[in-house]
């Protein structure tokens, strides 16, 4: 059976398991210690903060494939390193060779969270900065999904528009779709 996109966690008392884990780790890192006292305090904070803040949060899709999410994270980190080198070369080269451009990438993703992650990865990877998500949020009617969404990106050196759109869709969007099952 194909798994479905989920907005709520399985356990009531632990609404966001990953965020709790993150809080736990961040607390220990901030204090730079693993003494029993700090571990107990970190566990308490990791359970209480998500419970206390859950009424303020809008429901976002959960990560359903943690293994794939980790692989995607590693791929993105690797891409960030190569992106830095590529952009450094582009910046140091002559300005005349650069043809910048705006490109509209059609999106298959639906929720804010996956779209935000995609926009951020696009900003951190080769020669592209995400600029805008269309349609405008103000134009959306409450509770109705728009027919099509676009991500407007600015490209430092645009060579082949179709190839770029294809790369973004296959390399970054497809894994996100899989991870969140949306």
């Amino acid at each position, binding site marked *: 059976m194909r798994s479905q996109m989920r907005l709520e966690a399985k356990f009531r008392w632990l609404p966001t398991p990953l965020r709790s884990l993150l809080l736990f780790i961040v607390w220990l890192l901030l204090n730079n210690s693993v003494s029993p006292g700090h571990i107990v305090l970190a566990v308490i904070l990791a359970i209480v903060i998500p419970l206390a803040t859950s009424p303020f949060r809008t429901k976002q899709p959960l990560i359903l494939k943690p293994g794939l999410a980790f692989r995607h994270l590693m791929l993105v980190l690797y891409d960030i390193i190569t992106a*830095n080198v590529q*952009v450094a070369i582009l*910046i140091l080269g002559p300005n005349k060779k650069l043809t*910048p451009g705006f490109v509209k990438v059609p999106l298959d993703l639906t929720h804010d969270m996956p779209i935000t992650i995609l926009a951020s990865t696009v900003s951190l990877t080769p020669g592209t900065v995400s600029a805008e998500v269309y349609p405008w949020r103000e134009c959306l009617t409450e509770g109705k999904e728009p027919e099509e969404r676009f991500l*407007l990106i600015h490209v430092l050196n645009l060579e082949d528009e179709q190839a770029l759109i294809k790369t973004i869709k296959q390399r970054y969007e497809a894994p996100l779709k899989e991870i969140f099952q949306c």
Partner: protein
Amino acid sequence: MIEWIISILLLIGGSFVLVGSIGLVKMPDFFMRLHGPTKATTLGMALLLTASMIFFSSTQAGFSAKEILISLFLLLTAPISGYMMIKAAIHHKLDSIDRTKGIDNIEDDV
């Protein structure tokens, strides 16, 4: 030996940050200027922070891990600040250089 590693990391990191700043000065329009700081600088900072982590772990007792947090926060905030700036630039209809392709892809404000 450790001093060598730290120095090399500092030098590479410093040169990436420098390249990012050169990009900020050298590029012809605002949109192209944004590319330097959002990318070249993140890797540079990550390398500088790794150097700091190695230095403090080797000179002081215990492992210094705060730098991992700083890199994480940088990775989270760099795209968002870039996004805010480019959104503001589009809203103010800043000029982009003439050879910019696909300028009609920008939709009008509501």
